[in-house]
């Protein structure tokens, strides 16, 4: 048997859609030997009370993340673009439906 067989089951991240019309949301993680078992475990661990209508699982090592620092330059371009928000524009009170 290979080393991996003897090791820990890989880690999966679990995403649950609470109900139709909502996004899948990250709820936590778990260990499973393969994708199919990860879905079954996710059902038992994260949806014992009808918390979901759909489950996604993805191996944690398949996720690419941005840098952990919130002040990362990655997010800087959106910092100074206040004109992307509706509140940037002043509209007189007597203009309806806007």
């Amino acid at each position: 048997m290979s080393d991996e067989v003897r090791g820990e089951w890989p880690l999966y991240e679990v995403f649950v859609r609470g109900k139709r019309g909502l996004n899948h949301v990250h709820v936590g993680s778990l260990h499973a030997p393969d994708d199919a078992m990860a879905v079954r475990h996710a059902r038992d661990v994260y949806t014992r009370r009808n918390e979901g209508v759909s489950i996604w699982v993805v191996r944690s090592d398949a996720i690419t993340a941005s840098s952990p620092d919130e002040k990362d330059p990655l997010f800087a371009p959106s910092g100074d673009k206040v004109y992307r928000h509706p509140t940037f524009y002043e509209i007189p009170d007597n203009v309806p439906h806007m």
Partner: protein
Amino acid sequence: MSSAVAEPELAAQFDATVRRKDRIEPRDWMPDAYRKTVVRQVAQHAHSEIIGMQPEGQWIGRAPSLRRKAILLAKVQDEAGHGLYLYSATETLGVSRDELTEMLISGRQKYSSIFNYPALSYADVGTIGWLVDGAAICNQVPLCRTSFGPYGRAMIRICKEESFHQRQGFELLMTMMRGTDEQRAMVQESVNRFWWPALMMFGPPDDASPNTEQSMAWGIKTHTNDELRQRFVDMSVPQAKALGVTFPDPDLKWNEERQAHDFGQPDWDEFWDVVKGNGPCNAQRIAHRKQACDDGAWVREAAMAFAEKQKVATA
């Protein structure tokens, strides 16, 4: 972890985040001592959920009715789930599940002392739900706002589930109190045994809890042990009255001035003795966990081997 920023600056950012009562996330820089404290506390919490299945789990096969059996099964299954949420929260800090299990079995990490007391009758299933889960709720509700993000999120999920645990226990005891004299005596006897260990669940008195101050400064803990113990006593007294049982404490009485109950101190020598491993069930609890782990090893290996084989087949 980023090498470009100097440590004092990172420490200042960390302190500012904690001061804002914002959350620390796993990949943030954090002081080593903070990381160690969170790992110790969350792992101990996870172990408590896992070991906590044992006293009640023994009664699943002997439940008095199908209804009680289904309830107890669901409750114990929840505790397994709580253990899993908390283990994954711990693992975000780079400790592996195998290491955690090993540290539990070797005794290097602790679990709540309450689970070293036996469940001797079915009334104990009710008392555990009412008082032990009740004390756990008291501890856990404030932890939903703890500074380490994954811990707080696990606690929110857990707290949602705990209320069923406490209510099923109380309802079980109410049912027994409506029964025979013998059943009422069983309930009172059970409450007598669990009251003091339940008070111990909040940990030693504040002046004997050296880590509390630092944990509170870091926002890991938000209340002291004594504050939570007081809250629990004040919540439990009217519940006991509604149930028709008493607590085995001659010093327990309402203090009008403090608008709170005065109460006696648990036997702290007994507490430390149980923590050191000399409780009625310490050895049995660990032996059982170790056996479950050993007995399950071939299943874990077989599942991995099957997954490997499928991979090769589809490649």
